[in-house]
C-alpha cells in the first residue's frame, strides 16, 4: 500500500516550531520567576553578606560571613530553630494521626459524613487572624474560657483549678499553646489529604483484610499506613516547610514572647528586618531557612523513594 510521506526535514521544521511555541508560552512565567524568584533569591543571598539597614543602598557595607557568625552564636536563633523542630515534630505527628483517624472514620460515608468533613475543614478556610483572636480569648489569663473552666466549680471538683495561669505569658506553656492553635487550624487539611489517599486503596483490600480476621489496628498499621506513603510524604514535607516558615499564628498570639520563648526563624527574620532595621542579618536568617527547607525536603523525598523501592 502506498503511503504519503512528508518531505524530508518537514518533521524537524514542525518540531522546531512547536518548541518555539512552547518557549513562547513559557516566556511570561519564566520572566516573572526570573524577576521575583531568581533575582529575589540572588538579592537575599547577596545582602546576607552586608551590614545594611534596608533603606539606603548606598549605606551597604560588605562584612563577609560576619552575619552568619553572629547568627550561629545567637542563642535566640538556636532557640528559634529548636522551637521550629519541636513545633514540626509535634504538629506533624498529631496532625497526621488525627487527620488519618478522622479520614478513616469518614471513609464508610455514614449519615452526616459530609457535614463532619465540612466541619473539620472550616478552620483551614478561616483566616489565621480569626483563629489567633479566638485562641487569644480562649487563653486570656483573667477571664478567658480555659481558665474560667479550670477555676469553675466543675474544675475544682476535678482538682484542676491549680492549672489556671497565663498560658501565653508563661514560657513553659506558651509554645504548647501556640502548637495547639496551629493543630486546630490545619488538622482539616491533613484530613483531606488522607481522604484523597484512602481512595487509592480499593475496597477489596479492606475486605480481604477483614476476611483474614484483621481488626482495626492491624488493618491500620499493616494495610493502610504502608499504602499511604505518598500521602505521608506530602503531609510531612508540607508540615516541615510550614514549621520552618511559621510566622502568622506565632506573631499574632505571642510575638515570639514571652521573652524569646516562642521565637521562630521567621519571627526573628521579621523582627530583624521590619522592626530592628537589620536587613543584612535578616537576610542571613532567610538563607538558612531556605537551606533548611531544601535539606529537610531532600531527606524526606529520598526516604520516601527508598520506602517505595523496598
Amino acid at each position: 500500500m502506498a503511503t504519503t510521506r512528508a518531505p524530508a526535514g518537514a518533521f524537524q521544521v514542525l518540531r522546531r516550531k512547536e518548541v518555539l511555541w512552547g518557549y513562547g508560552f513559557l516566556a511570561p512565567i519564566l520572566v516573572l520567576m526570573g524577576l521575583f524568584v531568581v533575582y529575589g533569591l540572588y538579592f537575599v543571598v547577596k545582602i546576607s553578606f552586608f551590614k545594611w539597614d534596608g533603606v539606603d543602598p548606598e549605606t551597604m557595607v560588605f562584612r563577609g560571613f560576619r552575619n552568619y557568625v553572629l547568627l550561629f552564636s545567637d542563642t535566640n536563633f538556636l532557640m528559634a530553630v529548636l522551637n521550629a523542630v519541636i513545633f514540626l515534630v509535634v504538629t506533624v505527628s498529631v496532625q497526621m494521626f488525627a487527620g488519618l483517624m478522622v479520614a478513616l472514620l469518614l471513609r464508610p460515608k455514614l449519615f452526616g459524613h459530609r457535614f463532619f468533613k465540612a466541619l473539620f475543614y472550616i478552620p483551614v478556610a478561616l483566616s489565621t487572624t480569626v483563629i489567633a483572636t479566638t485562641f487569644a480569648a480562649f487563653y486570656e489569663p483573667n477571664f478567658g474560657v480555659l481558665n474560667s473552666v479550670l477555676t469553675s466549680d466543675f474544675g475544682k471538683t476535678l482538682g484542676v483549678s491549680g492549672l489556671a495561669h497565663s498560658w501565653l505569658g508563661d514560657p513553659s506553656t506558651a509554645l504548647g499553646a501556640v502548637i495547639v492553635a496551629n493543630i486546630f487550624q490545619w488538622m482539616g487539611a491533613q484530613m483531606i489529604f488522607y481522604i484523597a489517599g484512602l481512595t487509592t486503596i480499593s475496597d477489596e483490600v479492606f475486605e480481604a483484610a477483614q476476611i483474614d480476621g484483621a481488626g482495626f489496628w492491624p488493618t491500620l498499621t499493616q494495610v493502610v499506613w504502608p499504602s499511604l506513603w505518598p500521602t505521608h510524604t506530602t503531609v510531612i514535607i508540607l508540615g516541615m516547610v510550614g514549621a520552618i516558615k511559621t510566622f502568622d499564628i506565632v506573631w499574632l498570639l505571642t510575638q515570639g514572647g514571652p521573652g524569646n520563648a516562642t521565637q521562630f526563624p521567621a519571627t526573628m527574620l521579621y523582627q530583624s528586618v521590619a522592626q530592628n532595621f537589620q536587613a543584612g542579618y535578616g537576610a542571613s536568617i532567610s538563607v538558612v531557612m531556605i537551606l533548611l527547607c531544601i535539606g529537610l525536603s531532600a531527606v524526606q523525598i529520598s526516604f520516601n523513594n527508598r520506602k517505595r523501592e523496598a
Partner: protein
Amino acid sequence: MKKMALSVVLAALVAFSLSAADKVVLTWWTWTLPTQEDFVVLKKGFEAKYPNIELQPSVNQMDDYKTKLKVEFSSGTGPDIMSMQPGSMIDQFKPYLLDLTAPAKATLDKLEPAIVAEAKLRSGGDAVRMAPLGASSTMFVYYNATYFKKAGITKVPSTTAELLDAAAKLKKTYPDKVPFTLGLKDSWFNGDVFGIFADQVEKGLLEKADLGTVKFTDAKFVKALGNLKGLVDKGLVDKNSVGVAVYEDSIGLLMDGKAAMHVNGGWNVANLSSTKVKNDAGKLYSDRREGRATVDDVFSAFPLPNFNGGSPVVLGGIDIGIAINKNAAKDPAKLDAALKLMDYMLAGDGQKFETGRAGAGLIPSIKGAKMNLTPFVDKESADGANAIVTATNTMMAGPRGVTNPAVFTQLGVAVQNVVNGKDIATELKAIQDVYDKQM
C-alpha cells in the same frame, strides 16, 4: 457636524487635562494619627482652603508603614509628606527628609520654642526634619473613679504604699475584678516600661545608656528592674500580665468594668470623657466609652507612682511630627503646597481639629494653646486630664525609646523575663550585648 462634535470633545479633554494639571497632588502617609476619620475632615477643610491642591492621605499599621517607607526611599521615591516619630524612626529616615528650618520658618515660629528645639535635637541636632504636631507622655494609671469611691479610696495614690493599699481595698470590695492591670505582651509597650522604671531611679538614665555614657549593666538598671520585680513579688503586677496585650486586653478589662486600674500612655485621655457629652458629629469623644458595662462610670488618671521613691516622672515629648520628602523641594509648586499643608496642620484649622479632638490625646505644640478639656465634665475626669497635661509639661524625665530599635526590642524582652522570674543581671547583660553587637 462630526467635526464640530469632535472639536467639543477635544476642547473638553483639553480643559479637563489643564484643570487636572493645575492641581498639585500631595501624598501624606501616616500611622495611627491622623485617623481615616480625621482625614475626611482634614482633607475637606484643606482642599476648601487651597482648591488647587489635592491631598491623598494613607493611614497604615506601624510595621507596614516603616516597611513601605523603606521600600519607597530605597527606590528614590516616597510620599511627599509623612508622619514621623522621634527615636529610631526619624533616625533611620532623616537622610530623606527636608530641613524645615528655612522653608518652614514662618510656621515653626508659631510653635513653642522648646518643642521646636526638641524636634531639632531628635532630628540629629543639625536640622529640623520634623515639625511637631503635638506632645504626649507615658505612663499613667487610668482608673475607674466610681469603683474607687465605692472601695473608700479618697486620695489618688502617689506612692507605692498608697497604690498597694488602693489595690487591696479594691480587691476587698470587688473580689471578682482585677485591681491593677499592666499589659506586658507587646514589645512596643515593654520598652517604655523599662524606660519608666529606669528613669524613676534617675532622670534621663535610659537616654544616657542610649548615648553610651552608662552601661545597661549599671547598678542603677539593676535597681530599676529590681523595683519591677518587687511589684511582682508584692502581687501588684501579676505574672499573668505577660500574656495580656495593652490593646485590647488590658484596656478592655478597664473599660468593660473587669478591672479597676490600667496603665497606659497619656494619649488615651479621651477614655476619661463623659458619656453625657458628644462632639460636633454627635458622637462620644471615645469609642471605648460606647456601649460598655461602664457607660455610667466616671474615669480618671494619675501619673504612675515612682516605685523608687520620690516624685513621679513621665517619658515622652513630641508624639508625632510632620516631615517633608527631600524630593518635594525639587518641584517649587509641590514644596509650596507641602508647606501650606504643614502650616494648616501645625498652626491652622487642621491643628485646631486634630489637637482639639480629645481622642487624639495630643497636647498642641502651638504657642499658648491648651488641650480641649470640654469632654471631661466630671470633676475626677477633669482632674485626670489636667494631671496628664501637667505631667507632660513638668515631669518629663526623658524621651520614649532608644535610637537602636534592636536594643528597644531587647528592653521589652528583659521586662517580660524579669516578670517571669529570670535573673536581672543576665537580662541586662543581654541588652548590653545587643547594644554592643551593632547587627
